[in-house]
């Protein structure tokens, strides 16, 4: 028994010695859907260029990721590379000394301030994760229905209403596939989708954080007023329509327009047997600057206690490079790399979404940074308020006032 054990020990020591220069980096992630993409495309591409570093992608289930990661970090058994949730969850890890400061990583120069905003300290000095992927909001539409009814992509809000009214008048199709049962679509695909156009993207969003703008200012109330008009164009009984209901209505060709996030692209490609197009949130008047919600969703950082910080930084620098962006964008259509340098995307629908980055100003969802830390929680309130105004049970003005009261009750800069 002792002999075998000694033998095994000796063997393992020898094995280690033989690969002394080889470093294995373990990657923690919640994207178990992406396991194949990492193993078949991302990891081989990196290892081919960096002999001596091997990567191991070890994802866990999305719902359990935060809890598992936290306990692994506390126990000191977490991997070297850590996939970062946006905003407060990761910020808490950085503040707790679990994530390393990446301000001296050369690759960080490839990202804009908006892209970095999800993984940076409140003062904007210390980034701690490399931005990896974003999702873009807009509207996906059924090209066949548009051709049949002789409609064109609307550019302004007036044209948008015109298109919706025409589809409704024709009566064969539901103008807009959305419901309020699950509430989050109303806020995410409604309020945060069209909102940046009204509050001028970053200007309004940072204005809220700095206390210069208020949620009941005309710019913000208008968004809710616009949402209030949507209810007329939704299907019968939209009050009880769920998110999967809406997806099915659209992909079965029963609805013409789907307020979307780009993450739908790969799913819809597989389900819809008609040609799809996409248009960005319509602007108020022809020629106005357009704004899109280009929301930071996935980042990647380094365990502060990693035994191989140098190698980990080499990998993170590679993630920040255009080469990684290209692989990532095409392996997962609908998730966009955040680097400032544009990449070529082959999926036409996903490419359409990405093309708006050139025409429009990017921003992120207004409630995600700092503003959802208190009670009442702004994000939850937005779900509720957006769904209420679409259902017509609360006036946009009342809803806006309630949102502002909620925020100012705990956020000092809004008092």
């Amino acid at each position, binding site marked *: 028994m002792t002999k075998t054990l000694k033998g095994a020990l000796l063997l393992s020591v020898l094995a280690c010695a033989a690969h002394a220069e080889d470093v294995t980096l373990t990657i923690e992630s919640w994207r178990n859907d992406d396991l194949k993409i990492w193993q078949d495309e991302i990891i081989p591409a990196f290892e081919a260029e960096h002999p001596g570093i091997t990567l191991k992608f070890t994802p866990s289930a999305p719902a359990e990721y935060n809890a598992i990661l936290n306990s692994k970090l506390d126990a000191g058994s977490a991997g070297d590379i850590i996939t970062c949730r946006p*905003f*407060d969850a990761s910020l808490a890890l950085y503040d*707790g000394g679990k994530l390393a400061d990446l301000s001296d990583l050369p690759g960080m120069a490839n990202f804009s301030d908006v892209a970095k905003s999800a993984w940076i300290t409140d003062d904007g000095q210390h980034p701690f994760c490399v931005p990896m992927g974003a999702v873009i909001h807009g509207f996906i539409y059924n090209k066949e229905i548009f051709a049949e009814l002789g409609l064109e992509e609307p550019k302004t809000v007036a044209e948008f209403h015109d298109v919706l009214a025409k589809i409704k008048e024709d009566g064969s199709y539901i103008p807009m596939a959305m*419901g*309020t*049962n*699950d*509430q*989050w679509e109303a806020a995410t695909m409604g309020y945060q989708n069209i909102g940046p156009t009204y509050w001028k993207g970053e200007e309004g969003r940072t204005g809220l954080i700095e206390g210069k703008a208020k949620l009941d200012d005309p710019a913000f109330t208008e968004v809710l007023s616009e949402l209030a008009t949507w209810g007329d164009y939704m*299907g*019968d*009984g*939209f*009050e*009880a*329509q*769920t998110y999967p*209901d809406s997806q099915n*209505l659209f992909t079965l060709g029963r609805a013409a327009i789907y307020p979307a996030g780009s993450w739908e692209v790969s799913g819809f490609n597989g389900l819809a047997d008609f040609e799809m197009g996409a248009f960005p949130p319509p602007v108020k008047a022809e020629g106005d600057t357009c704004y899109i919600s280009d929301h930071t969703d996935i980042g990647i950082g380094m365990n502060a206690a990693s035994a191989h910080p140098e190698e980990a930084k080499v990998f993170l620098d590679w993630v920040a490079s255009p080469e990684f962006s290209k692989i990532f964008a095409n392996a997962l259509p609908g998730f966009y790399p955040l680097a400032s340098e544009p990449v070529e995307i082959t999926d036409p629908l996903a490419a359409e979404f990405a093309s708006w980055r050139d025409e429009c100003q990017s921003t992120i969802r207004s*409630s*995600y940074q700092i503003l*959802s*830390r208190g*009670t*009442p*929680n*702004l*994000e*939850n309130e937005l*779900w*509720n308020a957006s*769904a*209420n105004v679409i*259902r017509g*049970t*609360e006036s946009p003005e009342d809803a806006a006032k309630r949102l502002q009261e*909620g925020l100012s*009750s705990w956020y000092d800069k809004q008092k």
Partner: protein
Amino acid sequence: MPKPHVLIFLAPAVLVYTAVMIYPLFDTLRLALFAADGQERVYVGLANFRRLFLDPLWSDQFWNALGNNFWFFLIHMLVQNPIGVALAALLSSPRLRFAAAYRTAIFVPTILSFVIVGFAWKLILSPIWGIAPSLLDAVGLKSLFAPWLGKEAYALTTLALISVWQFVGIPMMLIYAALLSITEEILEAGEVDGITGMAAFWKIKLPLILPSIGIISILTFVGNFNAFDLIYAAQGALAGPDFSTDILGTFLYRTFFGFQLQLGDPYMGSAIASAMFGIILVGVCIYLFGIQRRLRHYQF
């Protein structure tokens, strides 16, 4: 001093029950007296309860959830239990054929998972794919259809009725068992005195099953004030539309575990859990001391 073998026989149950029920219960009550201060846990006395009951940010939600809980309970008491008693009375009728088949069919939903029940009823009532609108259409009553689960005025009642549909088998079975235990001699003695048919039910059977109805009421009370699963499965943790289906269970879940961008607050969550415990305790005490002791028990 009890005999040693009594202690030994009690030990497994007492130990397991203490570890998984009593200790967590008291720890929750203790946790409700603390709050987070940065990374530290500090003792704050009853401050969490003051916030919960007096700070409008919390108390509005709390009273709303409590009110909804009472409505949920009331529907069960007014619909589930009378139907359960009626079904049991029908089933115990000796002339009824296929009694076993009915009994099984009515009891089966009770053993289904909440998730399945919530999902199935959401589909049945769906304005898009559901069979409810087409069934109503077939009898010319389409105008009565509304997206019930999406309307503030109807959603909670609809969910309560779904829950009634699922659980009506439980009062039925308990009452059925109570009815079967009534001996023939009593009924025959009644017949001799001229009490037959419906009168036999009201004058002989009902008084004899009253203790069972009491037990069912208290089970319904505890079950309803602990309810969570059906609402969560059908409407999500935000209990839409506009919190009209929010009950204490969903309120507790949101607060304790957090939701979307809202980080969990185990201390306020424990305060809500303690309040729920208190409400149920008071309810059960009222029943035990106010009602059960006055119930007359008949011995045959």
